[in-house]
């Protein structure tokens, strides 16, 4: 005979209240696990989509407003290039990549064209001080992670990612419309601002203003246009989570002379979805606490009333109040553990089924959520058992005697 034997046998002696209680806990945990699992994978999917979108924060001169995200650099006003360094050296979390730009109107074969100076990513990585700031070394779950093996850099990624890995001082990337108009092919040599540039790649069509642009190294554009170390815009690839968590505020504090703009609607949508899901999780957590806790409390309270004579007898036989307390709390912990495990299993299966249906995402069980669900179920049942257990431990053992 052990305490566990006593708890186990008593549980099976009264299976109906036990099952009712267990079902309440299982349902609460299931709902919590299912909604949290779907939310988690939905957040990941949105984050991936945000990352795929490319730059999502713009640093502009103070007086500039943006009507067209893709033409945000066509305003003629300038920012010091030193701002790029300021951002790079800051400890701001969530800046996954930087892309300063300077747009200069020029001509190609007698036709007007916009030459945009861009700074390739290799420029940042080459600077020891900037590297020390670790700006591209935070593996924060979105965007490019420096140092990790990746596919060979493709200059054409500029069209989608708005960031390029390497670009020589006299190399150019040509938008698809310009290439078509001037019959330019990869490897051709073109003259811009009085100097020769080799065409590194023809960018795929994007349907944006970028199709009618030519991109060259920022410092080459600055030098040839004689504009000095200035840019029109600094595009930032920011992690959506950090944008929501205060990246924009951080940038505003860092660069008070500049204007910081995010793709507000997109970030806002993401924030709203996340907030909704978080609230739903909290609602289900409250349901778990209320339903599971109440079921456990009432079951155990009734159980103690029903077992008064038995508990009194145990006390007469030498049971201490601590043992009686352990008997009731132990029962609650057994139910809490079973409810947590079953609820996690059922919740994970529900999420696996509901994820593609509700959020169009594939999901898999999250072990950390299992630990959380188990911890919560056990905590709730433990707390719900305290009053009944205390009542049992304080029971008057005289109840085991029949009044004569």
């Amino acid at each position: 005979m052990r305490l566990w034997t006593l708890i186990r046998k008593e549980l099976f002696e009264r299976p109906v209240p036990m099952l009712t209680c267990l079902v309440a806990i299982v349902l609460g945990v299931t709902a919590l696990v299912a909604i949290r699992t779907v939310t988690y994978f939905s957040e990941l999917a949105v984050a991936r989509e945000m990352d795929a979108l490319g730059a999502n924060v713009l640093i502009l001169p103070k007086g500039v407003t943006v009507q067209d995200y893709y033409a945000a650099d066509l305003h003629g006003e300038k920012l010091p290039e030193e701002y790029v360094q300021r951002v790079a050296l800051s400890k701001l979390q969530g800046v996954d990549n930087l892309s300063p730009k300077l747009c200069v109107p020029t001509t190609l074969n007698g036709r007007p064209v916009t030459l945009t100076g861009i700074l390739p990513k290799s420029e940042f990585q080459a600077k020891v001080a900037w590297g020390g700031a670790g700006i591209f070394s935070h593996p924060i779950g979105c965007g490019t992670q420096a140092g990790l093996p990746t596919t060979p850099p493709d200059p054409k990624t500029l069209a989608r990612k708005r960031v390029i890995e390497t670009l020589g001082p006299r190399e150019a990337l040509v938008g698809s419309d310009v290439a078509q108009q001037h019959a330019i092919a990869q490897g051709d040599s073109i003259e811009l601002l009085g100097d020769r540039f080799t065409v590194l790649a023809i960018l795929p069509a994007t349907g944006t203003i970028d199709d009618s642009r030519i991109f060259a190294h920022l410092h080459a554009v600055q030098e040839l246009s004689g504009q000095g170390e200035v840019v029109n815009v600094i595009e930032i690839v920011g992690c959506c989570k950090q944008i929501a968590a205060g990246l924009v505020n951080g940038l505003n504090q860092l660069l008070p002379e500049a204007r910081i703009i995010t793709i507000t609607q997109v970030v806002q949508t993401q924030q709203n979805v996340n907030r909704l899901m978080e609230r739903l999780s909290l609602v289900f957590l409250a349901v778990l606490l209320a339903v599971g806790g109440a079921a456990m409390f009432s079951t155990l309270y009734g159980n103690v009333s029903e077992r008064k004579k038995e508990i009194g007898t145990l006390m007469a036989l030498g049971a201490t109040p601590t043992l009686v307390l352990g008997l009731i709390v132990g029962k609650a912990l057994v139910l809490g553990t079973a409810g947590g495990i079953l609820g996690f299993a059922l919740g994970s299966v529900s999420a696996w089924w509901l994820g593609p249906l509700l959020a169009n995402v594939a999901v898999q069980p999250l072990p950390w959520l299992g630990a959380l669900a188990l911890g919560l179920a056990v905590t709730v049942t433990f707390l719900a058992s305290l009053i009944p257990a205390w009542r049992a431990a304080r029971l008057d053992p005289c109840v085991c005697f029949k009044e004569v």
Partner: protein
Amino acid sequence: MLRLENVSKVYGRGGQTVVALQPTTLHLAAGEYVAVVGPSGSGKSTLLTVLGGMLAPTTGQVFFGGQSLYDLALAKRAALRGKQVGFVFQTFNLISYLSALENVQMPLFLAGLSPRVQRERALAVLDRVGLADRIHHKPSELSVGQQQRVALARTLANDPALILADEPTGNLDPRTREQVLDLFDQFHAEGRTIITVTHDPQAARRANRILCLEAGTVTEFRDPARVMHVA
């Protein structure tokens, strides 16, 4: 073995006080077989629970082997009860979901003995009360007499020096009652102290000392011939 010094018990219920036990001074020697008789509501159960260390008196002290029972911490008092006191209940108070063997193991488990020792000793006492072939039966699968014998085996499991019995023959048929009273005689012959609360004059007459409780007052019963009337 047991000494009560000016022990009283007063209950407060609904703003009123009920005196269950008037101030009582009593000495119960080791090896005595004492029957407590009296009408319903006279305070017999209160006296039994006070003697068993389960109900603190309102006044006075209860000494068990020279030790003031209610000066002991709750856990120590429970341990002493588990090792030295055995209870017999009118309705047996067997745990319905445990087998006869497990019921008898219970006080041994509460005394902290290993499962192996629990089993060995439980089997031995069940054999003694003639239930070696019923060890895996649950109380509901046993006759009333067998249930009381399992309860007696449970009482004996820890080899208690003191047995406190609450109407041990109250629910039994005459034949089983005789068997149980014979067992009590055996326990007494082994040197145990027995205090039994009873309505049964024949059971009371088996004792070598009879106490009468009326309206919370304990008196020595000097005339065994009148037991039938008082009980």
